[in-house]
């Protein structure tokens, strides 16, 4: 059961990811990205991270992607037309990526013994209770810092995007 679920949603994630890269119109890429995020949320559930799965959907798919869509709409971005100019990226990019992927896969295989399995329900430490407890005790400082970060980001975004007062 786990395997089937994993395979389905992994395939969806990969296909949507490819779509993000391949589509010409940014709005199509945005929709595909939402698909990726949704599949990832299910995979998180399989790994026992309930809170994060919910957060993924709410924050990422719900807020960040909406922000992206709004900006696309605001800028009236159309489909890409012209060719790019970076020869280096085009030449070296794909081969390097393949090498990278190969290396990562190789390490992944080597580092983790074949007996390590992921079973749904084997890890129950990902509830909101557990996350909250860790966040407010052991990780309090990062939590506070990251809230300041959000504040700064809001201020920055507001300052950058406002109309100039004439």
């Amino acid at each position: 059961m786990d395997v089937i679920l994993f395979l389905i949603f992994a395939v969806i994630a990969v296909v949507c990811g490819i779509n993000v890269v391949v589509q010409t119109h940014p709005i199509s890429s945005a929709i595909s990205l939402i698909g990726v995020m949704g599949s990832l949320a299910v995979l998180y559930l399989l790994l026992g991270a309930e809170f994060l799965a919910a957060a993924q959907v709410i924050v990422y798919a719900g807020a960040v992607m909406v922000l992206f869509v709004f900006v696309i709409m605001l800028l009236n971005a159309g489909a890409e037309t012209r060719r790019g100019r970076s020869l280096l990226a085009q030449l070296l990019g794909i081969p390097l990526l393949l090498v990278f992927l190969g290396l990562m896969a190789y390490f992944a295989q080597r580092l983790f013994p074949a007996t390590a399995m992921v079973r749904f329900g084997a890890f129950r430490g990902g509830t909101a209770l557990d996350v909250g407890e860790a966040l407010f005790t052991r990780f309090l400082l990062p939590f506070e810092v990251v809230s300041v970060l959000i504040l700064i980001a809001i201020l920055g975004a507001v300052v950058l995007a406002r109309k100039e007062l004439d």
Partner: protein
Amino acid sequence: MTGVPLSWYLILSAVLFSLGVAGFLLRRNVITVFMSIELMLNGVNLSFITFSYQLRQVNGQIFSFLVMVVAAAEAAVGLAIILTVFKNRATLNIDDVSSMKD
């Protein structure tokens, strides 16, 4: 087989990351490049949560949580910057915003 081998999750994470890099390298529209960055971050998130499972600790998930927060903040500010650049350069082509001499 009652479970999924751990390495598959990691390989999936690597694949998503690579797709994100590919998008970053090959696309010209700056918004699409940004979305590729988000894709990369998601891949990394998956990897963190996988390790959290492997170690049977919640720390990886906290990491992932913080990554999400940062990604959101970054998306907000980055898009604001894109707006400003668009206002100044009137282009969304990432190659055209370079003002360095040839």
